[in-house]
């Protein structure tokens, strides 16, 4: 039967969420002839709808449902109701992402083996490695049109990059370039080349940046095998007496509850909502939530070690012009414990508009120390730090029964404490970032605290042993055969790289596995 599908059609694969994980999985399965119903909590916004205005766009796209925070991270104080800056829309956070598309380094798949025992860290090796992922990375790079992979050229560098590059070279850094970006440097795959507009975070109005919203989703729909239901917010995953998943209960656009039956359910709601949904789906058979025999659902929340360094110069930079994330220094991404921490970090240029710079440069600050910084806005350059953070069992998503969302369900609480390794790495990165700008004449440098999390990972982690995690090497839950996790919450560890390319590669791989198992009659 072709899409749209009946609520009682129990032959369909239901995918919850349509971002880098769910959106790609939906298309990949649809291309293989599998019937898919994708349930997306947000609405559908396309390039003509995106807004070149930071706060207005935030209001259009951001996930703003009730959430709470705790822990020693500064976000819990400065943005207590906004632990994460992610998107509620068809295509998910692929509308908002900067486009950085980096493969994991080989050693990062085996963090426990390579880093050893780190006190307080719940490190684990992934049950897969770089060799196994290489063909899927290549497929993902081809799908996204990643620059500097295949025969695709790099993007030209903007002003912000030129300052960054000159500083990096003065410092002796070698691996400095305009990045491997899912932003077209030339027309590719029916998407045009980057027009250096800026506002990458607000949705690319040219479609030059890859987003599932205008690639995988419509292509999946064109097969006739994919039905995307917008503004369909899943409340609970249902199972039968044998523990097998039977379908999902969701609130539709009008707030009415609907029950969609399913052969398989794949959860891809981001690392906050996915564990929350498993926990909110607790039943008499699974009192601790679905797929939680390990007790690891919601734990090991990763957000990457982040921060920013901005600097003011005596002459204009105009960092907002052009690609938001316009280049990278990779020299510090190696694992080199002599620096005082395990794992590594990337430095990537970043430019915010004046409204977001005012909100994020030093949240809560006031007076002339703050305002003289903004007075130098036109002469400012900026970079973002993204490094591997340590998984900790106590960094976790839990249900806050005192706060309910618009559907009456307990809101997620996001607890995060920095690990000493995270702090040591951040301090090192602040020092190196400042040195980059000092090397080209910065008059003032700002070590800027982490923003609300954009890389949310790890809360349903992949493990060889069912005791250590929630899903196996295919993202299939250890406990329930027809329940899969398809987003970044599968991550066993975070590595130093921006996660989207790996989420996409895992989704392509998972689609192969699910289709194969369906054909064999195993699912």
């Amino acid at each position, binding site marked *: 039967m072709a899409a749209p599908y009946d609520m009682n059609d129990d032959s369909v694969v239901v995918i919850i969420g349509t971002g880098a994980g769910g959106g790609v999985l939906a298309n990949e399965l649809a291309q293989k002839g599998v019937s898919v119903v994708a349930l997306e909590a947000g609405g559908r916004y396309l390039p003509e709808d995106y807004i*070149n*205005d*930071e*706060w207005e766009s935030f209001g259009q796209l951001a996930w703003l449902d009730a959430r709470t925070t705790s822990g020693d991270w500064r976000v819990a104080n400065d943005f207590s109701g906004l632990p994460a800056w992610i998107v509620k829309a068809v295509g998910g956070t692929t509308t908002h992402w900067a486009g950085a598309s980096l493969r994991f380094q080989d050693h990062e798949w085996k963090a426990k083996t390579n880093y050893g025992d780190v006190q307080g860290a719940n490190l684990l090796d992934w049950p897969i490695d770089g060799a196994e992922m290489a063909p899927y990375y290549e497929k993902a790079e081809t799908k996204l049109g990643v620059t500097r992979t295949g025969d695709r050229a790099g993007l*030209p*560098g*903007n*002003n912000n990059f*030129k*300052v960054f590059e*000159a500083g990096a070279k003065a410092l002796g850094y070698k691996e400095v370039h305009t990045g491997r970006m899912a932003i077209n440097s030339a027309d590719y795959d029916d998407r045009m080349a*980057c*027009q*250096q*507009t*800026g*506002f990458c975070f607000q949705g690319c*109005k*040219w479609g030059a940046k890859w987003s599932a919203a205008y690639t995988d989703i419509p292509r999946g729909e064109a097969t006739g095998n994919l039905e995307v239901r917008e503004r369909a917010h899943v409340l609970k995953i249902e199972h039968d007496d044998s523990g097998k998943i039977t379908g999902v209960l969701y609130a539709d656009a009008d707030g009415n509850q609907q029950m969609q039956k399913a052969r398989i359910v794949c959860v891809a709601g981001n690392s906050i909502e996915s564990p929350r949904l498993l926990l909110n789906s607790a039943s008499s058979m699974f009192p601790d939530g679905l797929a939680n025999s390990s007790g690891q659902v919601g734990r090991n929340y990763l957000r990457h070690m982040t921060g920013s360094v901005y600097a003011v110069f005596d*002459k*204009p*930079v*105009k960092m*907002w*012009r*052009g690609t938001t994330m316009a280049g990278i220094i990779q020299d510090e991404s190696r694992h080199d414990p002599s620096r005082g921490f395990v794992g590594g970090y990337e430095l990537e240029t970043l430019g915010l*508009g*004046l*409204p977001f*710079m*005012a*909100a994020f440069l030093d949240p*809560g600050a*006031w*007076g*002339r120390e*703050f*305002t003289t910084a*903004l*007075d130098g*806005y*036109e002469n400012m350059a900026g970079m973002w730090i993204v490094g591997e953070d340590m998984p900790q069992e106590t960094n976790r998503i839990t249900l806050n029964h005192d706060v309910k969302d618009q559907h009456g369900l307990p809101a997620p609480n996001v607890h995060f404490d920095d690990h000493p390794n995270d702090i040591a790495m951040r301090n090192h990165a602040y020092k190196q970032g400042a040195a980059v700008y000092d090397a*080209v004449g910065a008059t003032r440098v700002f070590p800027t605290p982490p923003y609300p999390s954009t890389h949310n990972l790890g809360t349903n982690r992949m493990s060889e042993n069912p005791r250590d995690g929630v899903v196996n090497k295919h993202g299939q839950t250890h406990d329930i055969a027809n329940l899969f996790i398809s987003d970044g919450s599968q991550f066993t560890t975070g590595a130093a790289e921006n996660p989207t390319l790996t989420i996409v590669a895992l989704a392509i791989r998972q689609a192969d596995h699910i289709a194969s198992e369906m054909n064999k009659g195993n699912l």
Partner: protein
Amino acid sequence: MTMGSQKLTLTRRDLLSHSVAAGAAFVVGSGYVASTSAAWAMEVEHLQPETMATLIQMARDIYPHDHVADEFYAAAVKGYDNADSAETVESGIAALNAAAVGLGFVSYVDTGWERDRVDILRGMENSGFFQTVRGGLVTGLYNQKAVWPLFGYEGESFSKGGYIDRGFDDINWI
């Protein structure tokens, strides 16, 4: 509130002869606050004009930009002139003035040096009133499109074709 010339029926001479000094802004007669230069005026309905004038000065002292005119600070706090906020704002400003009197000044706006007002604000920076005003200014001030050019920020660029042909890489000093 009305900005610009529409409400400016008073001449500069009227302003100077009828107004009471209240920091950066002047209170003009009843129900009006205007700038000393008569570049703008605003009507207040729920707050005392002196209260609004003090609030505008407080906004500038929190986020002081010497190249940003008072009208933008006034626009940033105009939203407090409503029936629901009036009592909170009046008592918050009263506390501000009481703190100023405690330090030997006549009122908050009568202090002279910015550092004296900053000392007063530091003493109340954990109060709900201060944090509400400060937090509101982050968007109230910096998200005004008319303010952006004062910082060099160019805003929307899609309608102009982005910067591919308009200087995304025009830096000439690096």
